[in-house]
């Protein structure tokens, strides 16, 4: 049997077949063809077995009070635009003077998922407790080991750093100069354990444009000093 046919089923038809959007007769004809043609079968298999996960559409992102997050925006009507413009001119200087422009406020912990142009930046944590692995746990004990993965859409390698906030202290459990090639749930090298009995926030800072933030400034400024492109997860101590 030849590996290909003279008139392959088009990719559009195969997608419609996969979605169940063809009329009964057409679907029957295509199904019969695919069953007898290894090449078209290969193409349909590549659709049916595709494990690709569609990123969320970065349009409607809930704004958190006090946080400055990049979003896609609707183009407002001219009148609304004028009102927004007036508001910005009068309120923005005051806001910027009080809260700054590029960092998170201390009463707003960055979320674990952030929509950006091209996809999302997301932190996923895995807790290994005596061999039992839990994804995105909410608690910790001193015998747990944590691994992190990062989802990011940027092209090429990006630098990152991990900061752990406990009370007034901040730790950097991973080495310096870490970088990864973006993708879905890319493992960050290294693991860490948490001691103590305080609420803990684990954050990954991503630096796609090489403008990274120094550890010194984060030791001094805490969560306030985290760059905008930071994603965090929170862990509570377990009562033993």
């Amino acid at each position, binding site marked *: 049997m030849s590996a*290909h046919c003279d*008139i*392959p089923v*088009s*990719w559009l*038809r195969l*997608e419609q077949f996969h979605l169940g959007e063809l009329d009964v007769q057409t679907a029957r004809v295509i199904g019969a063809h695919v069953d007898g043609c290894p090449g078209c079968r290969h193409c349909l298999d590549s*659709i049916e077995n595709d494990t690709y996960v569609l990123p969320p*559409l970065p349009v409607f992102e809930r704004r958190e009070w006090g946080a400055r997050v990049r979003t896609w925006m609707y*183009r407002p009507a001219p009148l609304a635009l004028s009102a927004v413009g007036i508001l910005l001119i009068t309120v923005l200087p005051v806001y910027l003077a009080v809260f700054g422009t590029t960092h998170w406020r201390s009463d707003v912990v960055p979320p674990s998922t952030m929509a950006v142009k091209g996809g999302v930046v997301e932190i996923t944590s895995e807790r290994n407790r005596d061999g039992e692995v839990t994804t995105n746990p909410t608690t910790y004990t001193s015998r747990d080991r944590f691994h992190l993965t990062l989802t990011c859409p940027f092209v090429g390698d990006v630098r990152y750093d991990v900061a752990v906030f406990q009370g007034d202290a901040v730790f950097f459990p991973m080495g310096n100069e870490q970088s990864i090639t973006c993708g879905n749930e890319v493992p960050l090298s290294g693991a860490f354990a948490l001691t103590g009995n305080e609420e803990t926030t684990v954050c990954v800072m991503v630096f796609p444009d090489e403008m990274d933030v120094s550890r010194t400034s984060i030791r001094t400024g805490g969560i306030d000093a985290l760059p905008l492109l930071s994603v965090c997860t929170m862990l509570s101590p377990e009562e033993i």
Partner: protein
Amino acid sequence: MDIYRRYGPALVRKCTRMLGNIQDAEDIVQGLFVDLLKKGKDNVDLPYLYRAVTNRSLNCIRNRNRRRQLLGDQCRSSAHPQNEGYEYYYFSREALTRLVAVLDKKSTEIMVYRFCDNMTQEEIAQLTGYSRKTIGKKLAGISQKAEHIFKDAPLVNNGNGRRL
């Protein structure tokens, strides 16, 4: 947005075949749906969306810098390993990039449907509204241009050798 969830993966697959890069494919697909949202347009079907992303992907390819990068990628790998043995069904991105530079917009669009999407002339006519006669003439023109371009610089992955 339901149609995004339903048709997004199919459109990303299509754009990735044309551009060879999933990030660019996602950009194009998301850009399309953002525009549709802005216009409040959600009663569209897959053929309509297929055509829309085809034209957006072609615009991307036409960009001079993108063409250089695509050709660079093509030099490093001619075909995805999982498609080895099935190159017949996958049009060479090098061929696509070179032909986009010399064909008019209508011809380029028809070429994509014929060679990247494996559509018959009848399907192309249904999708685009172009007459069969126009499609036949354009394909003949594409054949001539391709022969002229590739006679001195053969493709690594011959545009699947199917008849026009």
